[in-house]
C-alpha cells in the first residue's frame, strides 16, 4: 500500500484512492484498533511459522489432561486402583517357570538407562490428552488455520480477479463461456463442491487451500466482472486505447488499479469465511493431515474431552478464534468504509 501512495506524485492532482482511504481508515478508531490486533496476530503467526514460538508443541510436558495453573492439579484418581493384598508374601519360586531368569533380566535391564521425565501437574492453559501444552498447540493451530485462510483467500481472489477481468473486459464469447462456468459453480451449494474437491485433492495444507480457492472465487469474479464492464467504456480507457495501449496494458495497468479496492475488500471477507470452513473441514477429517494441528482438529479433540470435564482446550481455541476473527471482521468493515465511502453504514 505504501509503495502505491509514494509513487503517486503529490500536487494539484489530488489524493490517490489509497492515500485517501488510509486517511479515512486512520480516523476510524475501531478500525485502527482492530488493525493492530490483526497485525499482532499475523506477526505471531509468522513467528510461529519460522519456529520462534511453539516449535516444541509436540513435547508431552504435562500429565495427560493437565489442568490450567489457575484450576490447580487434578485430584488423584480414586477409581481403578486395586487394594494391596494384606497377607504375607507367598514364595512361588519353586512353581514359577520364569523364576530362574529373573536375575539375568534384572542385569540386562540395568544396561539401559531410562530418564524419568518429570511431568508437570498443571500447565499454563492446561494440557491435552497426551499432556501437550494447549497454549502452544493452539498457537501452532492458529498458524495453520490462519495460513490456510489467508493463502486460500489470495488464490481465490487471484482466480476471481483474473477471470472476472477477462470476462468483463472482453465480453462476447469469452464472457459467455466464463459466465457459464460461474453459473455451474454457483448452481451447486458450496458444501457439495467442497466435499467433492476435498476427496479428490486429499488432505494437507495445500489441498485445503486449493479446495477453498477453487470453490470460493465466484464472489470476486462477479464483482470484478461488473467493475471491468463499467470501466471498459470509460474515457480514460478509451483514451489509452487511442494512444495504442495494448489490451493487456489496458486491463492490468489502467483498469485494475482502479478496481483493486473491490478485490481487497473481498479478500478480507474471504479470510474470515475460509478460516471457518477450514475448521469444519478439519473436524470432518477432510482438512489438514493427521500429524498437523489446526483449530479444527483441536475442536474435534475437544468434543470428547468436554464429556470428561476437560474444557480448557475448547475454551482456548474458541477464545483465540473469536479474538482473531472478530478483529479481522471489524478491520474488514473499516477497510470497506475507508475504500468505498459510499457503502458506509451498510451492514
Amino acid at each position: 500500500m505504501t509503495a502505491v501512495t509514494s509513487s503517486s506524485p503529490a500536487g494539484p492532482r489530488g489524493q490517490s484512492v489509497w492515500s485517501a482511504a488510509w486517511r479515512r481508515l486512520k480516523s476510524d478508531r475501531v478500525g485502527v484498533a482492530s488493525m493492530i490486533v490483526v497485525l499482532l496476530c499475523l506477526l505471531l503467526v509468522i513467528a510461529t511459522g519460522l519456529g520462534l514460538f511453539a516449535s516444541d508443541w509436540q513435547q508431552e510436558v504435562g500429565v495427560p489432561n493437565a489442568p490450567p495453573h489457575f484450576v490447580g492439579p487434578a485430584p488423584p484418581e480414586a477409581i481403578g486402583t486395586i487394594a494391596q493384598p494384606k497377607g504375607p508374601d507367598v514364595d512361588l519360586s519353586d512353581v514359577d517357570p520364569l523364576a530362574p531368569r529373573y536375575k539375568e533380566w534384572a542385569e540386562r535391564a540395568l544396561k539401559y538407562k531410562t530418564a524419568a521425565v518429570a511431568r508437570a501437574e498443571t500447565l499454563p492453559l492446561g494440557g491435552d490428552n497426551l499432556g501437550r501444552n494447549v497454549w502452544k498447540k493452539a498457537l501452532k493451530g492458529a498458524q495453520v488455520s490462519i495460513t490456510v485462510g489467508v493463502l486460500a483467500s489470495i488464490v481465490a481472489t487471484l482466480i476471481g480477479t483474473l477471470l472476472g477481468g477477462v470476462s468483463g473486459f472482453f465480453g462476447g464469447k469469452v464472457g459467455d463461456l466464463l459466465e457459464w462456468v460461474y453459473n455451474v459453480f454457483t448452481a451447486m451449494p458450496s458444501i457439495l463442491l467442497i466435499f467433492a474437491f476435498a476427496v479428490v485433492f486429499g488432505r494437507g495444507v495445500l489441498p485445503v487451500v486449493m479446495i477453498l480457492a477453487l470453490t470460493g472465487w465466484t464472489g470476486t469474479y462477479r464483482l470484478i466482472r461488473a467493475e471491468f464492464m463499467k470501466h471498459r467504456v470509460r474515457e480514460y480507457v478509451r483514451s489509452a486505447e487511442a494512444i495504442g495501449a495494448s489490451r493487456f496494458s489496458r486491463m492490468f495497468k489502467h483498469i485494475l488499479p482502479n478496481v483493486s479496492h473491490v478485490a481487497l475488500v473481498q479478500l478480507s471477507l474471504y479470510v474470515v469465511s475460509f478460516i471457518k470452513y477450514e475448521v469444519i473441514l478439519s473436524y470432518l477429517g477432510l482438512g489438514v493431515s493427521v500429524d498437523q494441528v489446526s483449530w479444527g482438529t483441536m475442536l474435534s479433540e475437544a468434543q470428547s474431552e468436554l464429556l470428561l470435564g476437560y474444557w480448557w482446550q475448547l475454551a482456548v481455541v474458541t477464545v483465540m478464534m473469536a479474538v482473531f476473527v472478530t478483529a479481522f471482521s471489524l478491520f474488514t468493515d473499516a477497510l470497506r468504509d475507508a475504500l468505498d465511502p459510499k457503502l458506509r453504514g451498510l451492514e
Partner: protein
Amino acid sequence: MAAYVIRRLWQMIPTLLGVVLLVFFLFKWFGNDPAEVLGGLNASPEQIQVIRDQLGLNKPVLDQLLIFLRQVVTLDWGRSWATNEAVSHLFATRLPATLTLMVPILFLQVLLAIPFGLTVAYLRGTLVDRTVMVLATVAVSISLLVYVIVFQYVFAFRLGWFPVQGWSNSFWTNLTNYSLLPIIVQVAVALSPYTRLYRTFFLDEIGHDYVRTARAKGLSERVILLKHVMRNAMIPILTNISVALPDVFVGSFLLEVFFSIPGLGRETLLAVNRGDYPVIQAFAIYIAALTMVINLLTDLLYKLVDPRVVLK
C-alpha cells in the same frame, strides 16, 4: 409470466450440463479408482478388473459420459455402487430428513430476525443497539462447530432437555424431539448476522422521504414501522433469502453430520468418502436443480411483494 418461467427453465439446461461435466471429470481425472475403493484392501488385481468391467469403467471416457447423460435425461440413475440401493430411492428417503431441518431453520431465522432487526433499527444509536451489534460481531466469529459442541454438551448431555443425537421413523418425533437441538443451534448462530443485515435494510427504508411524510401527517411510529417500512423492506429481505438459501443448505448438511441425521448431507459425505459416483453425480444434479428452482420461485415471489418489479 408463463413465457418468463419457461425461459428460465430453459436456461437451466446448459448450467445443469455444466454441473454434469464438472462432477464427471472431477472424479474421472482426479478421484481415486472406485474399483479399488469397492474391492477393499485384500482384493486381487483380477477382482478389481472384474469390478471395473462390471461398473463399465473400462469403456472409453466418452462412452461413459454418454451413458451418464442418458441416465440424466431418463432420470434413471442406476444403483449406488456401495449399497446397491437405487439412487432415486436413496434421494427420496434422505430428502425428508434434510427438509425437516431446513424448512424450520429458514422460517425461524427469517421470522425471528425481522422483529429483532426492526427493534434494533428502532433503537438505533442507543447503547442497546451498539451492544447488540458488538455481540453479533463476536458471536458470528466463533465457528458453528463450537456452538454444536457446547449446545450438545450443555443442553443435551448435562441438562438432558434434548436427545444428544438420533433420528426416528416418525416425522413428528423427529420434528418435536430430534431436530429441535440442531434447529436451535443453527437459528442461534444465524440470528446475529441476519439481525445485523435486516437492521441495515430497515435503516435504509427509515431514511426515505415517505417515512418523513408519514411522520409529518402524524402517524404513530408503530404504524410507520410495521406498515410502511416493513412492506418496503420485504424486498431486500426476500432477495437475501434467495441469496442465503445455499447457506441454509450448508448449515443443515453440516448439522446432519454433527447430529447423525440420515439426510442428504450425511449421505453426500458418505458417498464422497466411498467414491460412490452414481450417488454423488445424481445428488449434485438434484441439488443444483433444486437450488435453481427455488431461486426461480423467489424471483416470482418478488413480483408478488413488489408489483413494480418487471420480470425480464
